[in-house]
């Protein structure tokens, strides 16, 4: 129920997956919107505060998610050899892009050695700062990484629908509820 099996995802993985999905899409929209705010907008300081705080929580959740995934069995992937290879590459791509975006975002805000406050609740200190042009380069990686992630996430979603509606696989259903995993 909590853990993954060879047939389906457990509750921990399902919850982490959907929380991440909501956070990632929300952070992308927020990031896009906030970087165009005028200096006199009342959200000028508040929007980045939310973006940094949620982003760092997502960073922690992603690390937990990867550890959990390594410790648990991974559900078998249906489809042709080509589809299974595509799925494997796509999923690795999603994780890699996500980590690159999370790390580069962290490196923007910590470029001068100051930590990042998470909802004024605790502070994550800087570990890497004062690299040449750190904030600017990290910012470029953060932006293009986010665009790539949105593209790959769209493919991920389309693939899930294809498997669900056309191939009649259980991959989408089993990511919604452990009981929807097919028994064989």
């Amino acid at each position, binding site marked *: 129920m909590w853990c993954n099996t060879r047939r389906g995802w457990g509750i921990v993985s399902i919850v982490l997956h959907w929380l991440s999905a909501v956070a990632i899409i929300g952070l992308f929209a927020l990031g896009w919107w906030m970087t165009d705010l005028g*200096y*006199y907008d009342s959200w000028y300081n508040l929007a980045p505060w939310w973006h940094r705080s949620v982003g760092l929580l997502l960073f922690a959740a992603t690390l937990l998610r990867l550890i959990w995934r390594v410790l648990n069995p991974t559900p078998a992937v249906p489809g042709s050899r080509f589809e299974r290879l595509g799925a494997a590459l796509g999923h690795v791509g999603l994780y890699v892009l996500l980590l690159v975006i999370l790390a580069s975002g962290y490196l*923007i805000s910590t*470029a*001068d050695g100051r930590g990042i406050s998470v909802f004024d609740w605790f502070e994550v200190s800087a570990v890497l*700062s004062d690299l040449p*042009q750190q*904030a*600017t380069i990290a910012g470029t990686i953060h932006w293009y990484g986010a665009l790539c992630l949105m593209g790959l996430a769209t493919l991920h979603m389309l693939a899930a629908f294809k498997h669900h509606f056309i191939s009649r696989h259980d991959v989408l259903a089993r990511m919604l509820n452990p009981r929807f995993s097919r028994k064989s």
Partner: protein
Amino acid sequence: MLKKTTLAALTAAALVPVSQAQAADYVIDTEGQHAFVQFKISHLGFSYILGSFEEFSGEFSYDPENLAASSVSMEVDIDSLNTNHAERDKHILSEDFLNAGEYPTATFTSSGFESTGEGEGVLTGELSLHGQTQEIEMDVEHVGGGEDPWGNYRQGFEGTTTLTLADYDIDMSSMPESMQELELYVTFEGIRQ
């Protein structure tokens, strides 16, 4: 007669190195960090943001006997901007303001000097910033100079000027009136070569 000429020649020869030593070339001491390029700009008219450029180089020629012949040139690495706030620095360096990607360096080359009193004067020169070159006047002051304790000979100066950012095509139109200008402060020691 011969003796007199020889004496005169010897005297002249002895004097030449002295007068040459007066108009000397100096390199700005960025290695020992006895040099700063700072700016001060209003924040909403409430207080000031202070920032500095940490990477730059320059040299000058200084002759206390002939100040008008003095000259200075500096080159500043725009990416080295620091206002103690990484996200603000990133924004200032972005295309919205300094566009460091396209205009990575600012340069100043003096074209003239006019003394206005003992140890002070107005330096004119060309400042290139954000792809725009403007002639500026800088109030400068000779702070001090002489042998340092480590075997070098130094001269030190400071200077201030006010820059209108619009002159350099830096768009501050979304900012209040008080933020349209900034004060530039430069101080350095040069080591005689």
